């Protein structure tokens, strides 16, 4: 069997249609989108179209869309920019314990600058506890930043309830990191009620190196990248025209195909989850069974460590990702699973499988068979897996 890619939450391939749309903008339409001449005007046409495509996809106006170099940059900008702009009102920020590092580490940075940050806990399924938000929010809270859907366990956050709480506090901004959600679930800034929203092109079959930040009209946040007149003087740097054209086409396609795509992914995911739970003993599905991204499955396999599973799957041609410490190079296992209260040994044995458009039922079935062999092999090697000899699991 050909290589199998089950890591769409990490990145997706650029679709053929998007690539074709981008290609002329590398050499033929190479002008600087900010130049006054015909070359520049040709380029800005592509950028303008992309801005309209993004705006239409998320239900805002084109002049509320600002292109960035990544989702990470957009998160940096939203969090820092809002905090700096609102510091006269207050210095309290609320986020959750399961955010992407691009939000979490900016909050930590802001703490060093004299801001106070509340990191909201989540329940065992990975949902932010709204009552905790009610307790934490106060008059000097200037920003609440909570992701729309979690990248590791796929939990879709209760954004409407969150917004109900926030809107009672005038002047408190609501930022939503929607990076994992585009193309999988409906993302509409009016429906969410947010002031700021982050997205990233390569998560929905667009190119890498381009993201966007929605900034509600009338809201002023501080700039992150300061330079000239690009992005209406809000984000410096020559516009990456091919990438911007690409993200525009990608999001238009993602929204147009959303129902079909999410049904396809969910069919594969549900089959995968059912087979794994029925055919491999001592597994735990991390994350919720409802209100979960249609393409996400995350399992912990008791008695074994995630990296071994990941590499053995890789040797079998199956690409997945691991929340275990060892494979990511850090010593701490997944902060998301830990926040959910997953046993730390099970955190070490967690694997994320994220499905996408090119995946098939046959691939899912093949992967399940391989996974069964690998888990059995690694368990036989594990000193924790000697139950019948009466040895303690906790060495």
């Amino acid at each position: 069997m050909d290589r199998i890619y089950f890591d769409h939450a990490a990145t997706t391939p650029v679709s053929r249609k998007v690539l074709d749309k981008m290609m002329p903008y590398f050499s033929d339409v190479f002008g600087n989108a900010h130049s006054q001449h015909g070359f520049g005007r040709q380029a800005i046409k592509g950028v303008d179209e992309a801005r309209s495509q993004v705006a239409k996809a998320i239900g805002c106006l084109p002049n509320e869309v600002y292109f960035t170099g990544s989702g990470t940059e957009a998160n940096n900008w939203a969090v820092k920019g809002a905090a700096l702009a609102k510091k006269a009102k207050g210095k309290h920020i609320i986020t959750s314990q399961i955010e992407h590092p691009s939000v979490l580490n900016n909050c930590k940075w802001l703490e060093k600058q004299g801001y106070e940050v509340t990191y909201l806990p989540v329940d065992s399924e990975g949902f932010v506890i709204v009552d905790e938000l009610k307790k934490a929010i106060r008059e000097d809270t200037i920003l609440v930043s909570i992701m729309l859907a979690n990248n590791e366990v796929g939990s879709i956050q209760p954004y409407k309830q969150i917004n109900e709480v926030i809107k009672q506090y005038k002047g408190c901004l609501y930022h939503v990191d929607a990076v994992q959600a585009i193309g999988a679930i409906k993302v509409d800034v009016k429906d969410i009620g947010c002031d700021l929203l982050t997205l990233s092109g390569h998560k929905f079959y667009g190119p890498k190196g381009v993201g966007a930040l929605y900034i509600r009209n009338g809201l002023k946040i501080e700039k992150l990248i300061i330079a000239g007149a690009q992005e209406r003087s809000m984000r410096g740097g020559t516009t990456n025209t091919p990438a911007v054209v690409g993200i525009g086409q990608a999001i238009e396609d993602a929204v147009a195909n959303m129902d079909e795509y999410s049904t396809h992914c969910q069919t594969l995911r549900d089959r995968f989850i059912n087979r794994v739970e029925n055919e491999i003993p001592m597994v735990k599905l991390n994350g919720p069974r409802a209100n979960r991204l249609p393409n996400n499955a995350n399992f912990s396999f008791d008695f074994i460590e995630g990296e071994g599973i990941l590499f053995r799957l890789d040797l079998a041609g199956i690409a997945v990702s691991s929340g275990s410490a060892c494979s990511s190079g850090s010593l701490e296992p997944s902060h998301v699973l830990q926040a959910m209260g997953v046993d730390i040994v099970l955190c070490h044995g967690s694997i994320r499988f994220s499905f996408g458009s090119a995946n098939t039922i046959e691939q899912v079935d093949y992967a399940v068979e391989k996974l069964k062999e690998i888990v059995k092999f690694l368990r036989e090697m594990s000193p924790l897996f000697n139950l019948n000899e009466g040895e303690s699991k906790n060495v």
Partner: protein
Amino acid sequence: MSNGYNEKVIEVFSNPKNVGKIDNADGVGTVGNATCGDIMKIYLKIKNNIIVDAKFQTFGCAAAIATSSTATEMIIGKTVDEAERLTNADVVENLGGLPAQKMHCSVLAEEAIREAIKDYRAKQK
């Protein structure tokens, strides 16, 4: 693979030697803990002060499994004193190197062998 492991490490991880346990082992050593993500258990069979067999069980990453396999291979046939002098640097050298963040895994192999020898010596008394 873009994980920083060289081909030798991947080969050893893919086909580890000496996996399992030894019944009535002369020395058993366990180091690490599950919270940190690594546990290594080494079993030794010793005759006339020579390590005639060594097996391991490891809960851990690819580096932990590869170093367990290589360390057991390196001590079989050695005297107990020689085996006790095996260092993590010897194991890493045999594997052609490990990524920097994985070096702590190789220390476990060295420590597990020393624990097993300590257990053996204690039983001799």
